[in-house]
């Protein structure tokens, strides 16, 4: 079914199509419509899920954990300060190996108060063990929720589906709602092998000493790595069933490119027409959009970027005192390559500053013009 919808509602629809059984969420601008539509769907019976009203995001994730531990397919959504408040429980969800799926609307952190987009909120959670998908269209948001469950439930790890506040959350565009039958075939009912079970009682997560904790972390890492292949496989399968294929990254005009732009989310979308323009002017420019940031697709990036003349990375986030996260990690992934290209790291669009096509062009053109990068951070358009 074709529909025009906003990014927030695409998350809700993704949860509905995935037949989420429990939703525990607390509203926060600009995520509010996600929860609003889900509670409507629960109220009118179109989604047969338990909607748990909670008093904070910390409780939202705690309730989600309880539901997921009982074996229910569980969904929640949040943003920014709300995600930060969840921080402790995010670690818990990973350690408890609960395949929860959560939408996070990227919104800059306060102070000062802000509601506009920036990735620092979710980047700050990159070490919690949550898998992270950064989306770049309304359609991809909906599809990613479905794919997220498919991966999460195979590796017993939680997944965050991330979207830019307003630029995606409040933008309405064409979206194809897949048939429920087909989604059911792609994503069958989930039987959690470790669920709470009164016939097989167990105590979960009790005190574990240095004798085995290390191994538990090893197992998380191995399953996280395994999800890299699963993203490619389940993304292909998604393409076969629904006509839209997804992978760890998306490339555009990359084959013969000597200068490659690495970006994510909505900036990577606007980058496509920017690259079209530069191509018309004779520049061999290509794009790698990083879709899955955790696990980081290092191996694939080495394959795609080693041997290029120049690489620039645009980050809508900043790790103060270091650089943008996508830049730091892309650079780290390439470090041992003999043919590692020089890499420029641009910071753009913090706090929702618009990143129009001409600014993306500026960054690419500056990279082409410069011999070698100076430092790890290039600021673009800072006011005097």
């Amino acid at each position, binding site marked *: 079914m*074709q529909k*025009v919808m906003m990014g927030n509602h695409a998350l809700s629809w993704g949860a509905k199509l995935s037949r989420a059984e429990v939703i525990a969420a607390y509203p926060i601008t*600009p995520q509010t419509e996600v929860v609003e539509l889900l509670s409507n769907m629960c109220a009118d019976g179109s989604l047969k899920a338990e909607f748990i009203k909670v008093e904070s995001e910390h409780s939202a994730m705690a309730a989600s954990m309880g539901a997921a531990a009982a074996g229910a397919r569980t969904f929640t959504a949040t943003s920014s300060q709300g995600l930060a408040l969840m921080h402790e429980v995010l670690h818990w969800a990973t350690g408890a190996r609960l395949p929860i799926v959560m939408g996070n609307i990227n919104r800059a952190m306060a102070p000062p108060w802000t*509601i*506009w987009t920036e990735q620092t909120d979710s980047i700050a959670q990159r070490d919690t063990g949550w898998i992270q998908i950064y989306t770049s269209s309304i359609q991809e948001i909906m599809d990613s929720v479905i794919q997220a469950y498919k991966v999460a439930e195979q590796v017993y790890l939680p997944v965050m589906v991330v979207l830019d*506040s*307003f*630029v*995606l959350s*409040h*933008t*309405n*565009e*064409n979206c194809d709602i897949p048939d429920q039958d087909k989604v059911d075939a792609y994503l069958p009912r989930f039987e959690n092998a470790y669920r709470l079970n009164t016939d097989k009682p167990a105590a979960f997560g009790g005190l574990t000493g240095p004798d085995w904790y290390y191994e538990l972390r090893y197992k998380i890492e191995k399953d996280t790595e395994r999800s890299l292949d699963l993203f490619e496989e389940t993304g292909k399968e998604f393409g076969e069933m629904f006509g839209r294929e997804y992978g760890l990254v998306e490339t555009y005009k990359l084959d013969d490119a000597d200068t490659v732009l690495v970006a994510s989310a*909505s*900036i990577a*979308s*606007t980058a*496509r*027409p920017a690259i079209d323009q530069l191509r018309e002017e004779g520049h061999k420019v290509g794009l790698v959009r990083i879709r899955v940031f955790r696990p980081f697709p290092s191996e694939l990036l080495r394959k795609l970027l080693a041997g290029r003349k120049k690489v620039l990375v645009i980050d809508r986030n900043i790790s103060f005192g270091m650089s943008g996260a996508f830049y730091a990690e892309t650079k780290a992934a390439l470090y041992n390559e003999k043919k590692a290209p020089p890499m420029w790291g641009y910071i753009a669009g913090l706090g*929702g500053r*618009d*990143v*129009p*096509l001409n600014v993306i062009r500026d960054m690419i053109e500056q990279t082409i013009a410069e011999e070698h990068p100076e430092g790890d951070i290039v600021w673009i358009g800072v006011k005097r």
Partner: protein
Amino acid sequence: MLEIRFHGRGGQGTVVASKVLAFAVAREGRFVQTFPEYGVERRGAPVVAFTRIDDQKIYIRSKIYEPDHLLVLDPTLIGAIDVTEGLKPGGWIIINSDKPAKDFPQFAGFKVATVDATSIAVKHRLGSAAAPIVNSAIMGAFAKITGFVGIEAVREAVHELSPVKKDENVEAAQEAYDTAEVPKEQS
């Protein structure tokens, strides 16, 4: 690609007007993208919304800086802000006003059309007489004047998007469509 900017005030239905256009165009099988100027919405404060229309998937996700056309839902904004900022020469400016287009000489170089959407909205009891909701009426007129979208699709979109008084909104759109005058000097 067509890029259209909407100017209004909080409470008039500016954002919904941009969505009506997007929903209508999508019904005709084209690609759309619509979004408000993201901010904290307050009644009476100037509101801006944007709609992009194309035959192909739309990738650009920045604001619209150089719109092809404008819709002005509240004539009191003219002069208060520079509504034509970035507007491409020859673009349409469709204004909700009871005055004729020739009363807007400051817009030389653009194609100006007016529609008394306020009266139509009041007649169909949309919003209150003091604060009428004019989006349905102005979108009916937009369909007629520009021909960018059919009135059938606009009617359907208005019906889908009106939270209350669906029929009255559809009638307002139709009345504006039927009565709007297409300026003669239109190329």
